[in-house]
């Protein structure tokens, strides 16, 4: 069979093989929902996805609702990956939607945008500003939105579904591939179903098993995983 879908590497050892898509996991220009209970590695998954892109000269637009830039740098460094170089050469773009809430003073950089979890309108404005810069540099890029759960804690759930719809539209129009994370059970089942309906791919993590519940051009598959000192590894 000829593989017609261009797939990009997830950065997660074993996952690309599990998908069986010949060298990659996610179809390019799609959006993947990564969800599961708390503390099963959703953010780690995001770091690996983002870092894999950076290593391959794909810029990354990272929207963080839980950690400021320093925290993300440290979290990523724990796995032995160094974000500094990519912040420095402006291929890592960061929208910090939490530091204003925490009252942290942050120095301004061209690839660093301050926003607020409370103000989705502003998050979309910053997204637009960052994307204008990114696509002038590269026709393809990756984006991470980590996490929807925090946005829902600060806003009405339905509004966040609307926000996600716009996010997905903007990312796809401009040639990006994205993952969004969500903590299982933190919204009503109706909203959870809406989330699943508007993304392309769905990956469930439960601490032991990684289940691909939906994947463009692929079927439902399951594999065991561990969070190792080198990140998530799928057996």
């Amino acid at each position, binding site marked *: 069979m000829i593989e017609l879908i261009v797939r990009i590497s997830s950065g997660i050892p074993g996952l690309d093989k599990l998908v069986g898509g010949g060298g990659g996991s996610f179809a390019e220009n799609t959006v993947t929902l990564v969800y599961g209970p708390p503390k099963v590695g959703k953010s780690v998954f995001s770091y690996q996805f983002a870092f894999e892109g950076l290593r391959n000269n794909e810029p990354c637009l990272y929207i963080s609702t839980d950690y400021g830039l320093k925290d993300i740098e440290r979290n990523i460094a724990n796995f032995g990956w160094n974000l500094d170089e990519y912040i420095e050469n402006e291929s890592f773009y960061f929208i910090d939607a939490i530091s204003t809430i925490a009252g942290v003073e942050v120095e301004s950089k061209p690839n660093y945008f301050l926003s607020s979890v409370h103000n*989705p*309108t502003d998050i979309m404005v910053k997204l637009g500003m960052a994307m*204008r810069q990114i696509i002038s540099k590269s026709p393809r890029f990756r984006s991470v939105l980590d996490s929807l759960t925090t946005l829902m804690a600060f*806003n009405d759930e339905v509004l966040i579904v609307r926000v996600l719809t*716009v996010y997905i539209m903007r990312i796809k129009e401009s040639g990006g591939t994205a993952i969004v994370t969500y903590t299982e059970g933190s919204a009503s089942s109706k909203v959870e179903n809406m989330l699943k309906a508007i993304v392309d791919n769905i990956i469930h993590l439960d601490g032991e098993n990684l289940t691909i519940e939906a994947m463009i051009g692929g079927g439902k598959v399951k594999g065991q995983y561990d969070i190792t000192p080198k990140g998530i590894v799928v057996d």
Partner: protein
Amino acid sequence: MKKTYIPKLDDILGGGIIDNASVMFSAVPGVDYEAFGYQMLNGRLGEGDKGFIFTNVAEPETIIYEFRSYGWDLEKFLKDTQAFFVDGTSPFMGLPSDAKYSIEDYSQVEDVILEAIEDVPDGIGIINNLSTLIDYLGEDETINIIKKWNSHGKKYNASLIYLFTKWDYNHDLIQNLKKSMDCVVEIKTIEERVIIGQGFMVAHSSWSEPSDTMVLFFVVQPGGVKVYIPKILVTGPYNAGKSTFVKKISKKSVSVDRKALSAFPTTIALDIGHLEYKGFIADVFGTPGQERFDLLLDVLGRESVGAFIIVDSTAPQTFARAKEMIRKAKAEAIPKVLIANKQDLPGALSPEEIREKMKLGEDIPIIPAIVTEGKGVTDALEALLGLLYGD
């Protein structure tokens, strides 16, 4: 009538908004439009009016900081109790609020805002953000509440300004919202894969018949909402004074010059300038006059929204070349102003003589100028802006 303090908007609305108007700024997600509300408030406070901001998107401290970044001092007005906050954010984040009013539960919002309106007779209230309100209160209830607020605003002669982000709401809701307002300003994007520009347009006004032109804008810090002209072309025959014109019209300019052997400089690539004038911002591109650079004319002309054509009024033998340059820049299709330069030199032709010689229609303004002295530069700019914005 009250001014909006948004450049160009007053003209479109026939002088401003009626005193007790309800106005909705309705923006597609991704457009930077909060400044519209803040700029109106700041202008009105400056006039001595009272005003308030209802916020459910940022704590008052953050909004004060935003005002500061635009160069506006909200704190002064807060201290003088000329302005106050209705804080619908801090309590939801578990933060203390020292605002005049704070909302701990959305069931309070209707009455609290009614009270706030009574506190600002003849003044202005900013509601940021209407979308968030809808998602908490539901569509029908929000419409009902807005109607009550607006009629209260009428009673107390206060303007109410709503900021609305148009997420994917259903058509009926949007129509009902519009019907509840005296005026709706749509804020749109110009997109080419990503948002490359933004513009506003008056969709409806109960007191005037606004034109349907879209005004491009930028939000800058400091400054706020500024009308934006993407690119303006400056062209004309060799030695007509283009580089000097770009320098005179610009706040900042760069000239890519090379000293010729005879040691007088001429532009061999481009003059690039940036102008800011009465809230208008533009990038200005001056092309070299020599024929070997005509390729540039085509490229720049295609991207420009307006052009200045400069001629040496003492050199009628170059007028044919000027007309050729207009054609090559495809400037027939964009608004343009002709600048009759070097009016101080002996033998300079008058604008009317030039119009006749060049066979230009009356629709093209011809501005007499002495560019080296800066004379006529502002007139030329006013003339072009007039053409671009239909003044």
